[in-house]
């Protein structure tokens, strides 16, 4: 071995499965490498490729698309792209070069020969590849079922027309006014009646508000001058793929040079959401708990399908939460049918992730009952039976009983508004470890069924107390900081080793929960009513509690970690496993690992800020 090739050999030796091979084999492999440079925008394999190659990214990045142009993943430095070595499989994929990329290539045949004595390592290539193949197959099945709405809907049926246009010489202020007036999220800008650019609400936020550009600036300064278009006969699915590919949210609909309409990603999402709408409709009509159970069973598949369709994670959570709310509501109705009308008004409230609209699949049930103060002692049995009916029903629908007993069947959490008011008052004024635990559960409440005003009043009372109560906030902070992101001293992941989930990251407790906790503290400190984490972060952005930059970072981190979790769970559902929150770092690409580290760093930073603000 030329010692001078050692750097390349070292690079190779650090990448699985090569990391398990002896040095001598690594050296042989290194000798067989060709180094190429790929220009951004090109495809793999490069034009003059004569035989199937294995690719190892030295610098740069590439994206993998399915043959249906669905983004399957991204590869970065140190990632391997193996599937051109699989005879039939590469027809299912397109690999696009995102950045100028320095790439090491190896002939697949050479790898086969050199690794002949290492079947396990060789199998690694097959495994990853067949794994991907699996994914494509289930995707294709999906396209025929769930996406049929998208595939069968031509753009002209859902586009907005006429298009709101303006001359490109108007100012940003005028453009914003026009958009508000016409209630649109985008504007096509014209010059001598020819479209020259597009402006969206996001452009204004990003390029004007965020940069401090004056609103008297001409709109042409911040518009996007390349307008991406589709024809009105295109199907909605293709339009969605185009948006995904180009990372945009609006497409202009143009036929024969004529601007006919505009379509946004939310139009498509609405169309796509029909599936969950269909399920919730069926739930509303369910006549028995058995019928509800049956609908509820589709929840994991719905989650998997939405993930594979590339629906943004927040929308998935919302849709899943909508389904469990529908089930709860239907159970309340069925209970009232069985038990008769309630003697006094009440509110069935959800706590935790259900209240925050952040559910993924079947979570544990967290709920409570808040009853009107006019309740009399003889009404007690009615609500006891009501709670039992609903909680048992939820359990049968797959929402297991809360291990911490935070449910309306527990008499403690089935109380009048006044008793609840006292609870909150006590928790806030005399914080104890137990009280703080309850705070983190019961400060996230949402009325699912019944009289919404009961919870509203309670919340307003509570939010008047919290911002002033620094000691309470300090205790809450101290409590929240017990959950830390899994980054060690050397900025590497600290993995779970509990015997059951070895070598994994707990995405929920070490990733999402810390952000949820932070957002709650900010909201309570600022007296903000919002309950879902992203709404809370949006509401407090730029306040005393949290800078807008910090809010944006946390939002990104939350969405990224949540996306990984949803994807992980969707895969488990496909594999027939029970979805959990334990992700093995080796299941994601190196690039995603780097992003994940960044997300954890963001959490660490904001945790340390809040720690110094509220010292106990």
């Amino acid at each position, binding site marked *: 071995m*030329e*010692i*001078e*090739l050692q*750097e*390349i050999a070292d690079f190779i030796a650090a990448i699985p499965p090569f990391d398990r091979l002896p040095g001598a084999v690594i050296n042989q492999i*290194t*000798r*067989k*490498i*060709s*180094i*190429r*440079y790929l*220009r951004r925008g090109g495809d793999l394999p490069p034009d*003059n490729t004569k035989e199937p190659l294995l690719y190892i990214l*030295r*610098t*740069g990045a590439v994206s993998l698309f399915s043959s249906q142009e669905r983004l399957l993943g991204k590869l970065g430095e140190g990632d391997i792209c193996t599937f051109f070595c699989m005879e039939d499989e590469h027809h299912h994929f397109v690999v696009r070069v995102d950045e*100028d990329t*320095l790439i090491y*290539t190896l002939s697949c045949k050479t790898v086969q020969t050199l690794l002949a004595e290492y079947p396990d390592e060789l199998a690694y290539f097959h495994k990853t590849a067949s794994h991907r193949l699996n994914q494509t197959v289930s995707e294709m099945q999906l396209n025929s079922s769930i996406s049929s709405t998208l595939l069968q809907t031509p753009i002209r049926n859902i586009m907005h027309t006429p298009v709101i246009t303006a001359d490109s010489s108007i100012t940003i202020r005028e453009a914003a006014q026009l958009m508000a007036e016409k209630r649109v999220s985008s504007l096509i800008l014209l010059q001598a009646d020819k479209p020259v650019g597009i402006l969206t609400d996001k452009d204004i936020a990003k390029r004007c508000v965020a940069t401090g550009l004056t609103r008297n600036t001409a709109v042409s300064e911040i518009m996007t001058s390349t307008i991406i278009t589709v024809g009105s006969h295109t199907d909605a699915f293709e339009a969605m793929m185009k948006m995904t590919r180009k990372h945009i949210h609006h497409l202009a609909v143009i036929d024969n040079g004529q601007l006919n309409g505009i379509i946004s990603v939310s139009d498509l999402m609405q169309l796509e959401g029909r599936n969950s709408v269909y399920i919730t409709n069926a739930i509303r009509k369910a006549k028995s708990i058995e019928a509800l159970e049956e609908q509820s069973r589709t929840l994991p598949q719905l989650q998997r399908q939405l993930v594979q369709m590339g629906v943004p994670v927040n929308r998935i959570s919302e849709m899943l939460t909508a389904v469990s709310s529908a089930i709860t509501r239907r159970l309340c109705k069925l209970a009232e049918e069985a038990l008769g009308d309630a003697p006094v008004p009440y509110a069935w409230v959800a706590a935790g992730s259900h209240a925050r609209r952040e559910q993924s699949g079947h979570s544990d049930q967290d709920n409570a009952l808040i009853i009107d103060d006019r309740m009399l002692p003889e009404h007690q049995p009615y609500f006891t039976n009501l709670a039992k009916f609903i909680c048992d029903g939820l359990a049968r629908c797959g929402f297991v009983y809360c291990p911490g007993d935070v449910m309306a069947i527990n008499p403690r959490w089935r109380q009048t508004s006044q008793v609840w008011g006292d609870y909150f008052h006590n928790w806030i004024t005399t914080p104890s470890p137990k009280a703080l635990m309850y705070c983190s559960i019961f400060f996230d409440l949402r009325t699912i069924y019944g009289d919404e005003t009961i919870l509203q009043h309670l919340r307003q009372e509570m939010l008047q107390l919290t911002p002033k109560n620094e000691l309470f906030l300090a205790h809450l902070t101290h409590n929240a900081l017990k959950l830390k992101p899994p980054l060690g001293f050397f900025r590497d992941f600290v993995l779970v080793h509990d015997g059951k989930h070895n070598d994994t990251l707990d995405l929920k407790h070490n990733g999402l929960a810390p952000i949820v906790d932070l957002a709650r503290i900010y909201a309570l400190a600022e007296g903000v009513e919002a309950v879902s984490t992203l709404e809370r972060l949006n509401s407090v952005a730029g306040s005393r509690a949290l800078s807008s930059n910090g809010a944006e970072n946390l939002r990104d981190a939350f969405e990224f970690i949540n996306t990984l979790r949803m994807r992980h769970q969707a895969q488990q559902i496909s594999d027939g496993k029970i979805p959990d929150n334990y992700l093995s770092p080796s299941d994601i690409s190196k690039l995603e690992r780097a992003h994940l580290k960044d997300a954890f760093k963001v959490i660490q930073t904001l945790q340390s800020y809040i720690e110094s603000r509220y010292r106990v």
Partner: protein
Amino acid sequence: MFNFIFGYESQRRRQLKKVAAAPLKQYLATPFPDLKTPIDRVPILALDFETTGLNAKTDHILSIGYVAIDGLAIQLESAHHQIIHTIGDLREESVIVHHITDDKKSRGLPIAEVMPRLLEAMCGRVLLVHYAHIEKGFLRQICQQLYGLAPVLPIIDTLVIARKRLDQRTTLYSPGDLRLFNLRQRHNLPRYRAHNALSDAIATAELFFAELELKKYTTPPPLKSLIQQPWSR
């Protein structure tokens, strides 16, 4: 007509008639790639010398490294590195720069034993170097000494390519920007241990690829547009 007289091929043919020594004769007997060949089909040899100084007459080669490029892909299989055994002690500063000590040097081969293999690798290939002055000067000087003739050397110089590109811009640059290491950094190419003949040869090849891509051509440019004029120094 001009090319016929001064071009690489005509020079090669004329020199071939004069040379007797076998290694150089074989080199000169192999035709060079046609100047119209698209660059992705030109056989190339990326080459780097580590030397005790810039003067080919008074300084010595410490080590050489080279690797072949075919189809714009660096073929590591062809990579070769050789430490040269020179006469006389090494000057201290060059030892520090190149990490080649007297002890290591003594394990090297005399240049006369190394040249035949190098010339064989060069057969039919265009040389790719960063700052051609050194490699060109030393190669010609050594061939003159060993075989009595300084051969014609078709060369692509990445420094010249980069300089042309920087000259076309309006912004100023410093001569230091043209160093291999700095240019590579600009292209986001990985950091290699500098000043090793083979890793520098590979580094030069990668830089060449990156510079080529900056030209944003639709079809690969012909060799002619990249090669040094035969009469340039």
